[in-house]
Structure formats: structure tokens, C-alpha cells
């Protein structure tokens, strides 16, 4: 009887430590920085087609410190379960010259980014669905700023501008 009780107590202690560890992990992941694997052609040549492991920091976007030129992780406005890596081109109040369709025509229009929104674009303009298609996205969709690339190792370090 006492043997079972001590085994149960030890199992409970272990479960409590694991829970505390997972909660610390959640807090670090949500409020400090997170790792994310991104793939796809829309950010070539900055990010690879087959996959890059990126370190994303979760502090500066909450303080409003996102600047044009930053590569950010943003929730897709079209599919909320997906996160995208795109570059911020303009902040609220800025003017953006947007081509209607770079492949077929030279027509362009000037758009003013509304309050609380940002204009995002993939570096590979020919294979990216971004603000040129769905318009400026609310700042609140930004999940974090890409800080550096961890994998592949031959391009370890901060992303080029």
C-alpha cells in the first residue's frame, strides 16, 4: 500500500515538473522568441525554397518597433491558420506604388496605407501573394520579427536587406 502511494507521489511530482517546464516553454515561445520553419518561393532569394529555420523575436512588434525592410512573421489574412514570412514595405500613413500585375501590364496605382495597417510583400514579386493582392494587412496580424536564420548552416546569421 505504501509502495504504491510513494510511486504515485513520485509520478505526480514528475507530472508537476513537466507541466511547469512546458508552461515556461510556452511563455518563452509567446513572449520572448520562437523558432519557425518557413518554405516556399515567395521570399527568394532571401529565404530558400525548401526551408529555412528562423529565429523570430516576439518583443519589438508589441512595442510598435517594426520598420520598413524588416522581415516579419505574419498571420495570413486569407488563411488564419497559416503564418507567412514577408517583408514590411510601408507603415501606416506611407504611400505605396503598386503594380496591378507585374507580368502583364505597366499600370500602377498609389495607395496610402490606412491607420493600424502595414504593406507586406514577398521579395520574389513574381511568386508571392501579398498586399498587392489582398491589400494592406492590420498590424495586429504580425506575430514577430525575423531575427536570424539558424538553418541551413551555410547561410547562418541575419538576413540580407
Amino acid at each position: 500500500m505504501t509502495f504504491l502511494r510513494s510511486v504515485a507521489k513520485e509520478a505526480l511530482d514528475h507530472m508537476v515538473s513537466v507541466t511547469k517546464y512546458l508552461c515556461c516553454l510556452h511563455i518563452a515561445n509567446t513572449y520572448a522568441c520562437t523558432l519557425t520553419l518557413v518554405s516556399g518561393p515567395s521570399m527568394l532569394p532571401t529565404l530558400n525554397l525548401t526551408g529555412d529555420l528562423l529565429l523570430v523575436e516576439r518583443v519589438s512588434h508589441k512595442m510598435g518597433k517594426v520598420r520598413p525592410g524588416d522581415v516579419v512573421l505574419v498571420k495570413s489574412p486569407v488563411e488564419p491558420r497559416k503564418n507567412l514570412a514577408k517583408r514590411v514595405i510601408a507603415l501606416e500613413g506611407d504611400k505605396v506604388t503598386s503594380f496591378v500585375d507585374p507580368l502583364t501590364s505597366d499600370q500602377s496605382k498609389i495607395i496610402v496605407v490606412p491607420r493600424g495597417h502595414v504593406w507586406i510583400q514577398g521579395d520574389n514579386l513574381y511568386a508571392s501573394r501579398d498586399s498587392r493582392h489582398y491589400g494592406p494587412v492590420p498590424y495586429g496580424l504580425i506575430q514577430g520579427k525575423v531575427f536570424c536564420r539558424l538553418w541551413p548552416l551555410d547561410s547562418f546569421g541575419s538576413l540580407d536587406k
Partner: protein
Amino acid sequence: MGGTRAFLRDIAKKYFAVGIVGVTVSDRYASVVSVRGSSMSPTFNPGTNANDYVLVEKFCLQNYRLSHGDVVIFCSPINHKENHIKRIVALPGDWMGNDALDDLLYVPEGHCWVEGDNSASSLDSRSFGPIPMGLISGRVTHIIWPPHRIGRVGRPDNHRELRLP
């Protein structure tokens, strides 16, 4: 002296553990939020005295399975530092009837149309358009304070969304 310090450290460790578990549960599963303003009157804050406290669940965010009439909390598309509580009136793919302009508005994929129950004093999709569902941070299920209004949060009486066959 050594005994008190060990005792205090023990209490501090317990508070820290409760704190981090509480933050994690509140971020991922359910939390309690106070409602400010009268844009959802009479569902929330029908009078001018105290603010209602509501229970917000986050399980709906796994697959974004929300329905018409759900009351949600979302990050304002105009100011990312503010959160609002409004009711979902139309989901992606719906056509909204707009009485003022006598025409129809299409709610794009991944977006929803939110309105406050108190149309007279509510800043909602009628001003800032449909919002991406990625801004939603939870669904309100129950009022938990004040005690005489504890209960589930249900649907309003009028359904104003129009769906074409």
C-alpha cells in the same frame, strides 16, 4: 532566521509556479476578461455601473470554427494595442445586405464581419470593414459576473445576414 528564509523562498516558488501555469492556461485555453463600454449593450454592460466579466475560450482558434452569432474578442485593425468584443454577423463567403446603400457586400475568404449589439454606439465592421479572422483571440461563452447575470452568452434576436443560394 534560516527557517523563515527557506519558508519565504518556498512560498515564492509556489507563486511563480501558479503564475506561469495561469498565464499559459489563459493564453491557450480560457481566460476571464472585463468588458468596457456599451457597444454590446444589453448583452454586456446594460447599465452604467459596473463592468461585466466574461469567460473567453481559445479552443475555437485551433481551426477557426466560428459561427454566426458568436461573440469574439479581436485585436483592433485600427490600433493593435486595443482589443474589442463584438458579435460575428457574417463569415467568409457570405454576402451582407447593406440597408443604407441598398446593395450587397462580399465578405472575403479568411475575414468576418463583426458588429456590436448596440448599433447606435458601436465602432465595428460598419466603420473598418471585414476583419481578418487571424485578429480574433477568443470566443466569449459565459458571463461570470455580476452574479445575477451569470449565464451563457446566446444569439441575438435579429439575424441580418443575407445568404444567396
